[in-house]
């Protein structure tokens, strides 16, 4: 019964977009569906937006418990909750003509803290690329070898020094050209197949979703 209810909603919302695609749009039902489309789209946008609170509730539950029970690292949880509420408040306030201080604080939190933190976290990876290059990237198979050679050519092709290097070696092509060629011939075809595989997989998944044939862990956990 539950499965039927869920499949019904899924199927109806899928069918809307399938019919809208398949039926000729100038007359009859097709025309009506096309007229309804912006409103359906708006409704789906709103439904998706409602999910935003779930993450907040999950985080609050987890971290509030940590703070209450004084578990290890609870001051971090306080910081997390405080920064979350501060950011949300100042961002919403921003829309209602806040005093200058509030706006400055918003900029401080968003531009000077959030942005810098994110960029730095990801920049750590540059160090890992370097150390892994030395410690992990061993050519063990012909596949890895092909990959490494291509990678080195591509890397030389994306820096200005690479072309001078090619001129020095008197190669008949520059690395920039070689990179573009690899990218737009072999890489292009390979990626095209990956794209194709993903969409055919998406089609198969979509059909299973519409017919309710996927295993649903949530339903099986609470029968």
């Amino acid at each position, binding site marked *: 019964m539950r499965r039927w209810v869920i499949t019904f909603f899924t199927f109806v919302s899928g069918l809307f977009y399938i019919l809208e695609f398949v039926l000729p749009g100038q007359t009859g039902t097709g025309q009506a569906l096309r007229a309804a489309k912006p*409103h359906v789209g708006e409704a789906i*946008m709103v439904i998706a937006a409602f999910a935003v609170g779930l993450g907040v509730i999950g985080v609050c539950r987890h971290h509030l418990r940590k703070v209450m029970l004084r578990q290890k690292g609870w001051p971090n949880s306080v910081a997390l909750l405080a920064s979350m509420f501060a950011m949300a408040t100042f961002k919403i306030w921003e829309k209602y003509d806040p005093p200058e201080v509030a706006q400055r604080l918003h900029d401080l939190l968003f531009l000077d803290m*959030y942005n810098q933190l994110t*960029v730095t976290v990801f920049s750590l990876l*540059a160090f890992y690329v*370097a150390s892994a290059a030395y410690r992990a990237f061993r050519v063990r198979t012909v596949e890895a070898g092909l990959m490494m050679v291509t990678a080195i050519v591509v890397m030389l092709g*994306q820096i200005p020094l*690479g072309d001078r290097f090619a001129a020095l070696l008197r190669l008949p092509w520059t690395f920039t050209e070689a990179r573009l060629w690899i990218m737009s011939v072999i890489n292009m075809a390979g990626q095209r197949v990956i794209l194709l595989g993903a969409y055919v997989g998406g089609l198969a998944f979509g059909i299973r979703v519409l017919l309710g044939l996927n295993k649903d862990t949530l339903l099986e956990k609470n029968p």
Partner: protein
Amino acid sequence: MRRNQPRWIYLAMGLSVTVPFLARISFQMPISKPVQRTFDQVETLARDNRQRDHKKLALLVADWEPATMAEINPQVIALLHHFMSREIPFAILGFRPTGPSLAQELAEEVARQRGEEYGKTWCNWGYKTQMDTTIQSMLSDFYTVVREDIKGTPIDRVPVMADFRGMEDVGLVAEFTGSSCLLQPWVEFVHAELRTPIVHGCTGVMESPVYPLLSSGQIQGFMGGLSGAAQYEQLVGKPGKGAEGMAAQSLAHLLVIGLILAANIKEGASFLRRRAWRP
């Protein structure tokens, strides 16, 4: 030494990106075809706009997040300089929460340098959820999906939007993102339907999946990573963060290549030595 080996490598990495800044080395980049085509597409829009009564908008799709700011921001700044110097009005829209604010920040910065102002040169449509259905709806009826701008002004009261009827008045989509699959809906829906030209800016990571779309002509051009930004800056004549970083980029690349080669040579040599000693 062995335990601290990664730390030595980290140090070498740190030095290889800081030294070029202090030494102030700079390079000219060869312009690659995809970047040149991006530039040409914007020029085409500017030329067409001059012959039209209603100028078409360029739509800057801001789908990047602070994590990829380092690569995307220089690209966007260069493109915004290009838009403003050619008097192309533009709009900003995003399907990632932080995107529209980051784009707004950059637009304000460039506008300050050029003496333009919000509302007359550009409009920010803000953040929306559910990309695929939302783009579909925008194609049918734009004003259902975009009701007010990022500051809460009803969208039809923003001066730059005065002549705007719907997506057919978008002359160019410039999509910037650090995640895969955010470009494709624009191709599948907007380009397939209205044949709107699309240009793209992406991080280096996402560069290789873009080539199929470029070679089929579904997107007209793109710039990838910091080197794409450096090339576009060169084309626009506004050297910025991209060009500045290329020297450091070169040195660090050489370091990585050197490390890969060194590791494999070491491995190969020890392998041969072991073999030679075995009876």
